């Protein structure tokens, strides 16, 4: 399919308008509610524990390249860095992508500055390890063992190396929080980490933490979109059911499925 069908334009149009409506209403000062997510206390507790033990914190954005999920993960990294900076604790951030290396270095430098301890930030803690998945994984487990990190955070896109990192972290007794939309890796984070945030829960968590009106509005807009998509899917199912009886509806069904 080189070009979109009409149904795709409609669906994206509706979802985008709902999200922008959420953001605009939040900017106009409408009070918005987001339920507190358990993942948030876990993040603060993990940073606190690492500071008590005086050991550094390791934050990995997995195989994150220049993609949306990596920016969401870096937003969480900035938040963790702000927490750690208060107690002048180190955050080690090994990366696999050179473009993300430049962005991550700036994000962390700025987080330490915002927390009032710009001098506590050590540039060499943001490290490019390797461009290859398993060289990166072996590098990270090397750092974990040598630096004896007390807390591990795994946020962003992950693949098979997720369990290599999480199981090694568990073996050295670090407290571990993970959040990823890579569904096939969530089971391994659940098995090896203390707390796992599933799919876009971690995105809502960062909106909750920052209390930033645009982020809050966006999460609300996203909820409206999910309700709309669920309703759309449900009506589609009803049409599919009726189509088994009245064949004329098959044309409508073909339109809804985008000619599949």
């Amino acid at each position, binding site marked *: 399919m080189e070009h979109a069908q009409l149904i795709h334009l409609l669906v994206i149009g509706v979802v985008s308008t709902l999200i922008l409506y959420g953001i605009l209403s939040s900017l106009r000062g409408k009070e918005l509610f987001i339920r507190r997510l358990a993942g948030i206390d876990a993040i603060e507790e993990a940073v606190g524990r690492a500071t008590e033990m005086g050991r550094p914190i390791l934050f990995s954005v997995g195989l994150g390249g220049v993609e949306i999920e990596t*920016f969401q993960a870096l937003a969480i990294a900035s938040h963790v860095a702000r927490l750690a900076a208060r107690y002048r604790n180190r955050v080690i951030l090994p990366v696999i992508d*050179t473009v993300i290396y430049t*962005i991550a270095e700036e994000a962390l430098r700025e987080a330490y500055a915002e927390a009032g301890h710009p001098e506590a930030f050590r540039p*060499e803690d943001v490290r490019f390890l390797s*461009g290859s998945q398993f060289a990166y994984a072996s590098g990270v487990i090397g750092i974990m063992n040598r630096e004896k990190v007390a807390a591990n955070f795994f946020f962003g896109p992950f693949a098979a190396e997720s369990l290599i990192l999480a199981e090694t972290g568990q073996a050295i007794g670090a407290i571990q929080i993970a959040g990823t939309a890579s569904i096939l890796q969530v089971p*391994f984070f659940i098995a090896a980490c203390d707390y796992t945030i599933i799919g876009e829960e971690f995105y809502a968590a960062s909106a909750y933490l920052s209390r930033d009106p*645009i982020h809050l509005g*966006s999460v609300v807009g996203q909820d409206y979109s999910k309700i709309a*998509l669920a309703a759309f899917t449900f009506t589609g199912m009803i049409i599919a059911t009726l189509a088994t009886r009245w064949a004329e509806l098959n044309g409508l069904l073909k339109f809804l499925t985008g000619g599949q």
Partner: protein
Amino acid sequence: MFQPVENTILNIALMILSVLVSVVFLAVLHNVPPNLRMRVIMVITFIAGLYYPLEFFIPDGTALTPFRNRYLTPFLNPIGDAVAVMAAFTVGIGITNLCIVHARNISQRREGWGNSVVFFISMIIMFVVTLANRYAPNLFCTATAENMMTPVQAAFSVMFEGVYTALNATVFSLLAFFITSAAYRAFRIRTAEAALLMVGALIVMLGQVPVGMWLTHWIPDESIFRFLRFEVLSEWLLANINMPAQRGILFGVWVGALAMALRIWLSLERGGYFGRQF
């Protein structure tokens, strides 16, 4: 305006000219007050964000189709190449960062500096051997008989198959051990959720190996209890619980991705890297 040229000197001249034009453009932007400069970057991000949606969402057979076919679709591959090439240039940043970290280890004789020396040696050997294998395979001796290899090919085979592929496959295979210890520790009936995690895994495991199948193969295949056979139950669960659940997660993940894309595109993103003034 952007047409290839035939003669070499003209080609080099145009290249130098383009560099000068870019430098002038950047210098002009440099002297512009910061918030105006930020506006320019926001506009450029917006325009860059327009390209793929316009190219993809303008349907065939409308007034805009000729515009799309003339100005947008032909640039799909060149833009892909341009992005890949510019990202390739950043590899230098990664390598310089690596070298700084390891060079500091050596210069300050930090604990484990020997490994940093090993890092430099293996990097340089692999770099030289891979380039030689690609551009000058028969460096020292040319004609090779059937089962003979040139020194460069031999070195590349040892370094690539012997070291790189072996290390890659071995680190990957560590998962066989880690999955066993993770399963042992995680599958405990502490809470309802942990119990369900365990039950799901056990059913699929038993459904995959002959021992598991042997346990329930006595249930006749035609009877209504057929779905109690491990391999059938595991197939059914994978198709009717696993698939819709994954789809449910994907609904949220993709709506979230769309929301972030909208915010980056309209420069609404705040916090972290984006928030800083210029």
